[in-house]
């Protein structure tokens, strides 16, 4: 076990405890203090086979308010945790497809409700499957945990449009994690994805362009090491870890991945995710927009 933990420790992250290896998860499959949570873009993937004992969080159906554009409230979050058999003391370990993009998004939403006993399984589904580790189609059932979520904290990790506008006007640090083509206005959406309805292209003035995928090793979906990440975000882009930073993308999901990288792997003092992102900014009347590289 010690060797397994060291594997993360030696990578030079600010908060290595936020990440666990596939091997660590494999060794803890029967640990009742841990709940594995799978969250994917393709919601059929969990049903096709998942880690033994893992539960499913559907990012659209479980985390979003069904009527208005917002996240669920404390009542629905408590009900979700009841269904997942999670108590405030449970450590949840998220993993999923697409380099843990949705896993980080789910973790970010959990943090809005103060559930910070959370980890990401490095490499997600891709690494687990590449290593030939077991999958099952058996869906675990848990008795209701009686979870009582506090009110949602929309201040610590979340940024709203007017706050971002003031932040950008004050030359705050912004990271645009979309593709360079979206950033520069060559396209209104990421490659191979449809346009989700932005009327204007470009980026928020002053934002640095760091596509979210740069933080991962494409061959197994694992995160790059601390020094490699620092080279990208700090040395190359000049982002200062002791100053606040706001990340955004199209609807706030890719930027949740970067939120995790900046907050936990690089230890930036304050990181917020602007979930309104480009679908809000690019459609809003009168907001400033910058184009080009």
């Amino acid at each position: 076990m010690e060797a397994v933990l060291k594997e993360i420790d030696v990578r030079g992250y600010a908060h290595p405890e936020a990440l666990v290896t596939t091997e660590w998860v494999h060794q803890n499959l029967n640990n009742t203090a841990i709940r594995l949570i799978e969250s994917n873009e393709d919601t059929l993937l969990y049903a096709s086979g998942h880690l033994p004992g893992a539960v499913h969080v559907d990012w659209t159906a479980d985390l979003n308010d069904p009527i208005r554009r917002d996240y669920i409230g404390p009542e629905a979050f408590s009900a979700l945790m009841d269904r997942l058999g999670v108590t405030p003391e449970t450590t949840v370990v998220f993993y999923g497809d697409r380099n843990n993009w949705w896993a980080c998004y789910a973790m970010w939403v959990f943090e809005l409700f103060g559930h910070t006993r959370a980890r990401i399984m490095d490499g997600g589904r891709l690494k687990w499957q590449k290593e030939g580790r077991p999958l099952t189609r058996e869906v675990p059932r848990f008795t209701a945990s009686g979870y009582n979520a506090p009110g949602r904290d929309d201040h610590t990790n979340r940024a709203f449009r007017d706050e971002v506008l003031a932040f950008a006007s004050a030359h705050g640090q912004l990271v645009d994690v979309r593709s360079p083509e979206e950033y520069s206005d060559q396209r209104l959406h990421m490659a191979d994805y449809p346009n989700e309805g932005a009327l204007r292209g470009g980026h928020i003035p002053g934002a640095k362009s760091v596509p979210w995928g740069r933080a991962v090793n494409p061959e197994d979906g694992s995160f790059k090491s601390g020094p490699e990440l620092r080279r990208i975000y700090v040395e190359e882009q000049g982002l200062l870890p002791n100053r606040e930073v706001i990340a955004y993308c199209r609807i706030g999901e890719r930027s949740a991945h970067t939120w995790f990288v900046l907050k936990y792997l690089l230890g930036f003092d304050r990181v917020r995710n602007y979930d309104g992102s480009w679908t809000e900014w690019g459609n809003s009347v009168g907001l400033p927009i910058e184009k080009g590289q």
Partner: protein
Amino acid sequence: MSDYPGRLGEAIETLSFAADPADRADLLLSFANRFREVPPEVARRPFPEIHRVPACESEAFAWGVLQDDGTLALHFAVENPSGVSAKALAVILDRGLSGLPPSEIATVSPDIVYDIFRRDISMGKGMGLMSMVRAVQTIARQAAEAEADGSQGARIFPRPPERPGR
């Protein structure tokens, strides 16, 4: 279920009986598990880009082969190993539409994606899957036009665009 061409209605009717999301997921998976990739006599890797389904992050490719009896046989490839929904849709489209005249296949609406997957998919995922249906529409329209023109040549669709001046 008469709004759907061919046997497509049968698949959608079967899915409509599965009220429970877990049962529905199982049914869709059973379709996905029956996925068979485009046979080598039709296409081999690297697949020509003309067959790539636009805006589909599952990296789907689609082919239509016009048969001697004037019907169309549909084939698909899904390169993303996580593209389970794309595989399920490919099987439903193949089983529901292959063997029909192209003019009939061309009437299929991309909205069937929501009849199959309901609203439980992200907008991005839904649009990508709808793009698969649109690719089938394009294939069917081209094949129908080729049939109507009595044009000879390759029977595999979509056809590459003709070079200017030819």
